[in-house]
């Protein structure tokens, strides 16, 4: 199935990528001259690899200027041609056959599959320039350092951070949130202070705050959700006005319901009370344009493995002034300026928060993943998922006995569809779908408070990404109907 519908929508700024084929004819360095340091869309089938270049220095010198960066981010976020069949060729794992059927991978909210570019870059790092960063004064260490720092710059461009120095490499969203709780939280949250969360948070945005609240004698306040999975705005206002709120921490997109929360509006309101906001963007940055300067969030956390990158690497973004005031999270090598027997001095952010040897290969792999999703265009990704979600709501909604949780209007949510069917338990459903080669998630999705709110112990969740097709949604529908027949619903 070839999709050309976005080609017509290309505007004048997208001439660099009128078609993947045209983009592939532009040589790598030449394309970079046009817009320095940008992810250059390549032909989706790897033909000739670009030469091993280390544009780190270039990025440092040319991309920090706001105008260039804004231009870069606009390019990453804009609409470009999109062809799902081409995209599928980039993911080797999609050739797998499960139980005699082609793998239909519908669990990207848990982790996405990896394109060949990312897999190859990891191998290339270990084969060709593996070395520790920031220390060696020899060739391959300089290459590794440049690639590592270039990855940081790419991520800054992706989310439009003011500077790569606002980008901290961590293990994932969970570590990013724990870092904020332990470093910023222990400094700024005290006895009787409040932290606002929502009932749709992932455990990783609940438990770190429970630990902090217990230690500091602070309390947690939850924004409730409506029956169709939206936040109760009034709860938020009341909590904010109750005073002594030190932080608002909330998910951008629910990993269970797909609800896209109006974080920008909430941030405005919180800032009016002088209260900083952390956004859990694990389910948004991979799927839609996210601009931290536009949101004006104080912290933003996301994971690499949910956006085509390797596992074990993720990002904490925070405003420069906040990072400068925060004490270190972990002590050790790499994060220090000077160490004496009884006291030490720290490096400036981001290095202050990157103690020890970090996940260098992971960071470089994530840089490649950012190139990949940037090449597809975040607006395109969002639209592709939106179409699939609408299609899925339409098809799944007609299956006998099904109940879909969250927003009824698929246009107000991302590509996450949680459901239950009759008295079929989610785990039984996942096993039945697996028999048809369909991979979905089942269980509480690390959101037990939300499950309680929905009044269920578990749900089955199908989630889509760049490589999913309407055909796969059809297969899901048929397999659900088969499950219904087996369970005699």
């Amino acid at each position, binding site marked *: 199935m070839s999709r050309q519908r976005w080609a017509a929508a290309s505007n004048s700024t997208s001439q660099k990528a009128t078609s993947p084929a045209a983009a592939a004819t532009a040589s790598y360095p030449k394309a970079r001259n046009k817009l320095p340091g940008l992810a250059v869309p390549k032909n989706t089938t790897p033909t000739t690899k670009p030469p091993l270049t280390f544009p780190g220095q270039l990025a440092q010198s040319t991309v920090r200027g706001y105008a260039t960066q804004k231009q870069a981010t606009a390019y990453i976020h804009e609409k470009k041609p999109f062809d799902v069949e081409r995209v599928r060729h980039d993911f080797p794992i999609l050739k797998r056959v499960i139980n005699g059927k082609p793998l239909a991978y519908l669990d990207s909210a848990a982790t996405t599959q990896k394109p060949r570019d990312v897999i190859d870059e990891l191998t290339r790092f270990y084969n060709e320039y593996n070395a520790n960063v920031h220390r060696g004064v020899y060739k391959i260490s300089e290459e590794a350092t440049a690639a590592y720092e270039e990855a940081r710059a790419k991520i800054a461009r992706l989310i439009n951070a003011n500077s790569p120095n606002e980008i901290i490499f961590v293990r994932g969203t969970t570590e990013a949130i724990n870092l904020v709780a332990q470093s910023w939280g222990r400094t700024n949250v005290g006895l009787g202070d409040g932290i606002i969360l929502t009932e749709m948070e992932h455990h990783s945005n609940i438990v770190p705050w429970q630990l902090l609240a217990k230690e500091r004698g602070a309390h947690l306040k939850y924004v409730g959700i409506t029956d169709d999975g939206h936040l109760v705005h009034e709860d938020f206002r009341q909590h904010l006005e109750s005073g002594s709120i030190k932080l608002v921490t909330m998910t951008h997109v629910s990993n269970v319901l797909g609800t896209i929360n109006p974080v920008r509006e909430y941030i405005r309101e919180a800032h009016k009370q002088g209260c900083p906001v952390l956004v859990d963007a694990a389910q948004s940055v991979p799927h839609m344009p996210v601009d931290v300067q536009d949101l004006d969030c104080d912290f933003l956390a996301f994971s690499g493995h949910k956006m085509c990158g390797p596992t074990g690497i993720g990002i904490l973004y925070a405003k420069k002034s906040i990072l400068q005031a925060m004490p270190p999270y972990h002590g050790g090598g790499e994060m220090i300026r000077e160490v004496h027997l009884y006291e030490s001095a720290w490096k400036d952010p981001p290095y202050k928060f990157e103690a020890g040897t970090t996940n260098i290969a992971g960071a470089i792999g994530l840089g490649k993943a950012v190139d990949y999703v940037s090449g597809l265009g975040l607006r395109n990704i969002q639209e592709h998922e939106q179409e699939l979600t609408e299609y899925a709501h339409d098809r799944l909604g007609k299956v006998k006995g099904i109940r879909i949780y969250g927003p009824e209007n698929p246009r107000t949510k991302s590509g996450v569809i949680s459901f239950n069917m009759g*008295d079929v338990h989610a785990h039984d459903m996942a096993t*039945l779908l697996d028999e048809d080669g369909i991979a979905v998630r089942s269980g509480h999705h690390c959101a037990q408070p939300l499950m309680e709110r929905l009044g269920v112990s578990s749900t089955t969740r199908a989630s889509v990404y760049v490589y999913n097709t309407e055909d796969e949604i059809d297969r899901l529908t048929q397999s659900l109907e088969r499950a219904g027949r*087996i369970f*005699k619903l």
Partner: protein
Amino acid sequence: MSSIYSEIILDYYRYPRNKGSLPHPQIQARDSNPLCGDIVEMQLELDEKNTVKDVKFNGQGCAISQASASMLTELVKGKTVDDVRKISKEDVLSLIGGQLTAVRLKCALLSLKVLKTGVYNYIGSTESTNEELSSL
């Protein structure tokens, strides 16, 4: 592909035998599978010869965990505690029939784990029992 969800499994899931609770159980235990949220509780009443006079289970979760718990109660009824102790994984799996993946095996064997935990607590546990329980 044939499904693990046979008529028998679904029948035990929908119409569980021996579901409920006993007023004076000598043996009882409860466990859950944190991964799935399956919960199974087992209660056994013994007569003076240490034979299982009555047995009930309670719980919630997937068809595999609940059906296997119900099937297991039928298996232990009338057996001596010593015979109950000898029930193996294979015995439970043959009741269920079909091929289970490693993750779903945990669902199938949860009730056996609960049963054995109760039995071992009753007769006094030894080191080897801990090893056996952790293998379930």
